[in-house]
Each structure stands twice: as structure tokens, then as C-alpha cells.
């Protein structure tokens, strides 16, 4: 089916299958930050924003997001880099494979929650799995980021 998708503030005229998931559409258009880690909607690697809110692009049918604003990490590189530098200072990007989805969720949280507690942060990020870091360094980086310190 033919539709237009607004991806990172540019309009893409696309022909997608009705069963095509947004993650596949995005990867096919060169947004290679989108990764699939689980196939069962529970790892968070493929997280993008729809109208600013984090969703699983692997579980979102592409036709459903026509008319909405889709944001991938490619679309917010300056802010993503700002947090990535803090994350890297903690060594907590490690293999980096889950980082784009994680960073998209962290920035969405920053935009959505005011002064989140550690528990709020854990709850908001419960859908982002990481096998390398053990999560502690990610929490340190998030706290630094939320304090607004630039490294």
C-alpha cells in the first residue's frame, strides 16, 4: 500500500506491505540504527519515537504511523551524542548494540518525566535489556545526564 511517512522531519513516499513492521521499513530506508534483538517485543533495541513517545518499531505496523512523526536516533544526533559521551565515560555503551534503543528511551524519559527518582528511571527503562553492562553504569550515566552535566 502506498503511504507517506514523516521520518526525522522528512516525508518519504513509500510502498509498504500491510504486514510490514516499522523496523523493517526504517532499515530498508537506511536507518540502520534500528536493530531487532528478540523477535518477541521485549528487548527494546528497536525503540523509536512516534509523536515523541517511545514505541517498539518491530511491533508497530508501518501503515499505522502514517500521519505521525517518526523519530529515529539518526534524527536526534546532537542530543544522542551528548548522552552517548556521558555513557561512554562510564564505559556503559559496551558492545553498543542495544544503545540506540536505550538512548531513545532515555531521552524520551527526560522529555516526559520531571525530576524522576531512581525507581522512576528503572520503571521507565524496564523494557530496555542489556546483557553487557549490568545496568549500574547506565544508571550513573543517566543521573549525570539529567543533572545536565556535559562531558
Amino acid at each position: 500500500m502506498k503511504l507517506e511517512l514523516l521520518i526525522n522531519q522528512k516525508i518519504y513516499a513509500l510502498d509498504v506491505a500491510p504486514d510490514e513492521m516499522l523496523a523493517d521499513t526504517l532499515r530498508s530506508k537506511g536507518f540502520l540504527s534500528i536493530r531487532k534483538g528478540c523477535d518477541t517485543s521485549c528487548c527494546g533495541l528497536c525503540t523509536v519515537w512516534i509523536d515523541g513517545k517511545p514505541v517498539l518499531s518491530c511491533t508497530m505496523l508501518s501503515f499505522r504511523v502514517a500521519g505521525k512523526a517518526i523519530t529515529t536516533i539518526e534524527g536526534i544526533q546532537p542530543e544522542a551524542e551528548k548522552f552517548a559521551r556521558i555513557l561512554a565515560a562510564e564505559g556503559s555503551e559496551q558492545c553498543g548494540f542495544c544503545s540506540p534503543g536505550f538512548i531513545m528511551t532515555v531521552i524520551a524519559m527526560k522529555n516526559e518525566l520531571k525530576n524522576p527518582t531512581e525507581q522512576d528511571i528503572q520503571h521507565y527503562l524496564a523494557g530496555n535489556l542489556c546483557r553487557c553492562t549490568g545496568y549500574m553504569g547506565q544508571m550513573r550515566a543517566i543521573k549525570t545526564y539529567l543533572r545536565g552535566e556535559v562531558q
Partner: protein
Amino acid sequence: MFTIESLHQPQTLSEVKQLVEKYPDITVLGGCGFLKLSSRKIPVALDLSRCELEKIHETEQHIEIGAMVTLRDIEKNPALNQWFDGALPKAVSHILGVQFRSCATIGASVYAKYGFSDILPALLALDTQVELLRGGRMPLVDFLSKPITRDVLTRIVITKDKRRVSYQNLRNAGADFPLLNAAVSKHDAEWKIIVGARPARAEIAVQASKLLTSSAYGTVDSGTVAMAASMELAFGSNNKASAEYRQAMCQVLVKRAIEEVLA
């Protein structure tokens, strides 16, 4: 992964009705989280996301939740947080992460009648009705007891009453399915005790609820009622836990829920 041959995106419920009549085997698309796990070949799919069903509407007497409302919407909704001790937001907040809850829809979650559901016990503890396109409105408990018929769930309607509600669940890992869950509500003098993920679907412990309702506070202790609930309901074994363990945990969760309501 499922495949879709043709897709319909009606804009009104009357269009939906026509489509359902025209294609008896039409498949309604929910959040697709569970559909995605199957390799179903769907000849005709129905998308309800343009039918104004993605809103939570508060009236004088009810809270109406459209079928396409996401679990994340429920979690964040001020009215649902304000009423019923926030039991519904609390119940959905355990389900995976925000990204998943932003995809999963209430309509599909209820319509599929999942045994492991966190939502059904909480909804059963409330005065909840489901609205079906063809079947009309009916209490949730009636809907759950009927075999799945081909219909389209359009809304969940909850009566705004001043009941106290407690939702309890036992999980091993935080983002895992519940080993068992329970909800208990008290509306005026009437108690309702619900236990889910047994692993069979959530069910009201009718006798235990009556026992608690008929006894003035102080004459029956919560442990006795919890024990009654665990004797009344059936429990099964799966990879997560055995029937015996679930039965024992039923006593713990129900007791805790009653005590939380009384607190």
C-alpha cells in the same frame, strides 16, 4: 511473523459492521505483540485505529476505554489513577516496558482472554462491562465465561464507584509473566476476590467473596477467606510454577490484597 493479504481501515463503526458481515473470518488487529509471534496467514485484516477508539472518555457515571487505547494510555490516565486506588494503572505497569505498553491495546488484551493477563483480574474487581459490536454491552464476567465468538470489542466501560481495590502479583523476574495474580475489591459491603494466572484465566472466587461479604469485619479473618479462595479455584502447572505452589500463593496474595483494602 504473520502475513496480511488485504487490509481494511474503516473510519466508522457502521463501516466496521459492514465489513464484519461481509468477511466472517476477518481478523481484527490489536497491538500485534502476540499476533507477531504466530505465522498466521491473514486473508482479511481489520484495523480500528481510525475509528475514534483510541480515547479514554470520562462521563458522570462511567469511564469508557476505547478498544485501541494502549496500556500506556491507561497507565498515564488521570481518571484511572484517581479512581479504584489506581488498580488498573498499577496492574498494567508490570507488563514489560513503556515501549511495549505503547503498542499493546486494551481491546486485544481483553478480547484474547489471556490466562496470564494482568489486566483481567483488575477489571473483574471493578464494575466492568465490555461493549461488542454485535453482542452489545455485557458484564466482563459474562463475556469471559462465553466461548470466543466472532465479534469486535469496541469499548470497555467501567462504572465510577467508590470502591477500594488492591492488585497483587507474584513474579520472579520483574518483566516476566506473573506466576499468579490477584485482585480484591470492596464496594460498600460487597467484596470481590479474583485470582488469575493460575495459569488459567482470571476467575472470581465466588464462595470466598460471599464469605467475606456476609461476615462483619472482625469475625472472619483474611487468612480463612484466602484459604477458602485457594480451595475453591482450580490451579494448574506449567513451566513457571506447579499447581500446589500456585494454590499456596493464592492464599498469600489474596490475604495481602484483603489486608491492603482494609488498611
